[in-house]
């Protein structure tokens, strides 16, 4: 039935190349062990999500689901609109004891693997050596988390643990 396919017509048919991979990690190692949030979109549509907080409860949440080509396309659009692929992390704060963030994206023939410290607020962005670039990262990460949290929350009916 044609309607089942909806707007989906393949994940790799847009400008920018066929390949797409996205991974985001935020976490730290402290007195409650390794606490982190990580998610990834794979080229075949598999969305994986892991969220571990040892505070109070000891359980790691691990979820995975295949998303449709339309969802992958929306993730790509959010990334493309942000223009993060033009940025560089060389002047961003180094990961430290407070924590680490990693953003890895493959789109077409571009591959970024950025890492930086946790960003508490826009003040951290503004006082950094690369406020323009870091601001793009800061907002993109929030928008991506928001997208993934909604997908996971709606599919599994669970709430993420905020780090």
């Amino acid at each position, binding site marked *: 039935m044609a*309607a*089942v*396919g*909806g*707007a*989906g017509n*393949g*994940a*790799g048919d847009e400008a920018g*190349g*066929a*390949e797409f*991979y996205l*991974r985001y990690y935020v976490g730290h190692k402290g007195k409650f062990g*390794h606490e*982190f949030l*990580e998610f*990834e979109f*794979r*080229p*075949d*549509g598999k969305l994986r999500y*892991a969220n571990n907080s040892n505070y109070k409860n000891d359980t*790691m*949440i*691990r979820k*995975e*689901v*295949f*998303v*449709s*080509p*339309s*969802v*992958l396309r*929306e993730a790509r*659009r*959010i990334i493309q609109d942000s223009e993060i692929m033009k940025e*560089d*992390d060389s002047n961003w704060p180094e990961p430290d004891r407070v924590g680490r963030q*990693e953003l*890895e994206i*493959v789109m077409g*023939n*571009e*591959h*970024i*693997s*950025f*890492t930086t410290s946790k960003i508490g607020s826009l003040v951290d962005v503004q006082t950094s050596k690369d406020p323009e670039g870091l601001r793009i990262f800061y*907002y993109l990460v929030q*928008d991506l988390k*928001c*997208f993934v949290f*909604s*997908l996971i929350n*709606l*599919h*599994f*009916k669970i709430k993420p643990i905020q780090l």
Partner: protein
Amino acid sequence: MAAEDVEFVDYERGEDEDDEGMEDEEDGEVSARALPVPRIAVAPSVPRTGRGRFVGRSRSVMASTRDRFDSIPFAGSSAHGGPQRSIEGWILLVSGVKEDAEESDLYDAFAEFGEVKDLHFNLERRTGYGKGYALIEYGCFEEAQTAIRRMNGTELLTKTIHVDWAFNRGPIQKATSTGPAQRRSRTPPRRLAAMTY
């Protein structure tokens, strides 16, 4: 483009994990199967423009765990592909939503096809306007399917929206891809079959 020939996600599992091969699963539960662990392997020779301090050193925490990821079993027929049911219903993605749309605009448009059980209209953090998409839950497959058929490609507040299922029952088939076939040629057929049944 030569870069397209090189896959960057290696679906092969580590050799130490062969003791729980997927074909050994006897309960038949999709949610219980062991998952292949990806290794992000970008060969230095790949003419892909890599940038960032972490290039070549990235390592998914998830990749290092042998624990299983929860998923919702496919209901009904064994055929893969097609929409995947979620815990409480069927989720649609609406994309192309006008930035100054409001939640009520979406609700009003989609309540026509059945009870909208949940609706996420996320805002862009920088601007406070809509991020351009919404996720909508219906309790019934037929309601969701009707909403796709009737709303996909229509205009909402003068902007064309696209409406599609959010979740699939299996990996995206690359039939429509313009890229070279056999992207996963390094994955042994047995494993590929186990992943894509």
